[in-house]
């Protein structure tokens, strides 16, 4: 049970780290985050079905495509409301989310799609346990991406610029950082991460236009637990969510259905008890 919980938390971490990035650096809570994941998942699906490209190999394509889409969405809409009240930002991203979801329904119908990758059902022994190969690969890759992001944020010039902007927009622009460019890059990066996570969803599960909202909400649960904008807390918070879902699935009768409610309950409880998050930044 623990291992299942841990494995699924990898994907959660990858999904939420992008959202945490856009909240932390730009200060925009993006309700459409999961829809970018959904677009990535469909891209992975179509590349596999039409051209036989394995979703794993398609990750760079997906990242680039979602970076471009995210950048375009930012330029066309979100940039205009950066200085508007927080609620306008929320409603705008909510609108984008509804738009993208229904666009997907119109384009690709609401039926779930599964990419039949040859090793989808392959299982590998892991110590005394047997786990699915895709799950293991996804976990490894997701963690690699998340840790890679930490490295970028911690070490590179871009990462330092992002952190500077996150701390103080005015101060950052005074020392010569082009704040608007950093915002654009950050939002694109957040969407690219969501897109990569989407391709992994294709690899491991199936995709439908409706998965976006689910992942947005789970990512919310995680970043709320981590404390809004706290990127370091995301991994721990993902573990909390993954483990508690697995726990409910295993120990509660009809747990499969109840586990859908776990993250909502976590959001509610954390917001009401510790609105600043569980983990120190």
């Amino acid at each position, binding site marked *: 049970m623990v291992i299942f919980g841990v494995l699924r938390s990898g994907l959660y971490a990858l999904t939420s780290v992008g959202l945490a990035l856009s909240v932390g650096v730009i200060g925009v809570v993006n309700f459409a985050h999961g829809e970018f994941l959904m677009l990535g998942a469909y891209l992975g699906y179509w590349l596999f079905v039409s051209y036989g490209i394995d979703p794993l190999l398609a990750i760079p394509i997906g990242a680039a495509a979602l970076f471009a889409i995210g950048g375009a969405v930012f330029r066309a*809409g979100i940039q205009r409301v950066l200085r*508007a009240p*927080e609620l306008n930002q929320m409603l*705008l991203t*909510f609108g984008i989310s509804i738009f993208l979801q229904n666009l997907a*329904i119109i384009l690709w119908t609401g039926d779930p799609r599964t990419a039949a990758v040859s090793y989808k059902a392959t299982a590998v022994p892991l110590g005394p346990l047997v786990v699915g190969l895709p799950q293991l690969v996804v976990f490894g890759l997701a963690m690699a991406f998340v840790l890679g992001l930490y490295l970028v944020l911690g070490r590179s010039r871009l990462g330092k610029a992002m952190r500077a902007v996150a701390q103080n927009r005015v101060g950052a622009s005074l020392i010569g950082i082009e704040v608007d460019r950093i915002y654009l890059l950050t939002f694109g990066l957040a969407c690219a991460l969501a897109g990569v996570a989407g391709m992994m969803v294709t690899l491991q599960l199936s995709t439908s236009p409706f998965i976006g909202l689910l992942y947005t909400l789970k990512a919310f649960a995680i970043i709320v637990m981590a404390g809004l904008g706290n990127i370091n807390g995301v991994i721990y918070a993902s573990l909390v969510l993954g483990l508690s879902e697995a726990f409910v699935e295993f120990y509660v009768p009809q747990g499969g259905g109840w586990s859908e409610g776990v993250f*909502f309950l976590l959001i509610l409880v954390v*917001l009401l008890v510790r609105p600043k998050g569980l983990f120190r930044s």
Partner: protein
Amino acid sequence: MRRAGAGVTLAVLVAAAVALPFWAGRAQPYYLQLALNILIFAVLALSWDLLARTGQLSLAHAAFFGLGAYASALLVTLAHVPIALGIAAGGLVAVIAATGLGLLTLRLRGIYFAIATLAFSETLRVIAKQMRFTGGSSGLIAPPLLGGSLPAQYLFILAILVAAVAVSWGINRSRWYFAFTAIRTNEEVAGAMGVDVVRFKVLAFAISAAFAGLAGGFYAHVFLFINPFEAFSIATSVGALVAPIFGGLYSTVGPLIGAAVLRVGEEILRTKFRSGYLIIYGLILAIVILYLPRGLVGLWASMRRRGRAS
């Protein structure tokens, strides 16, 4: 003069609304059904706006709608309560839930509040889906209101809407209006000025939920069937929020106009696309936020001003 004009317009509108079933009831049941849908939607939109006036942007209107629907359907089928009473009880259950939620979320602002209400609504959906007495994912069957007579049902929801309009009008004309606006603009300052912030926020929540719950109970006994996905649908919460934003926030007329225009537009789109017609909500939300911050009512006002100036 303008006052009298507005009064006449209002009287004509109400008379037309009351007369509609007698004209359309036999010949055009489709239009009567559409009108009834618009009225349900208008009640929800107005109810959402009432809460938004205190600065609380809820994503939980589906929760109150669903609670009303389930409470009424269960009371009528299990306890054999008269249907009208069941619907009223549905409103009451929603009020109780809203008071609890309102007290819990008092400290939460903006985005935190929105996320918490969304979480509340989705938690209820999971509960309704998992519990046996709610019929699980297959849902419940509810007996028809007023013997299933469409014109009578139409008048029933019209009465609920008129009550909602009266409450909304009354609030915007009383001292409450200033209390709500002060809380929305700046809670600390409102508190310092002597506005009882807690009381007004929870009151707004309760009143708002009452109408959402009534609409939900009504919905159950008109469409005769509810399940967790329909009753607690996020589309309900989205619709309840887009209509007032589109029509014009914090007013009585705005949500009504928004609801009517959106539902008719949705109906037209529905004939073109089998699904995915909700795309219009997303588009409208984005466009209104970017270009029309005061909604249709604001657009109308500024057009009139321009017309008079030229």
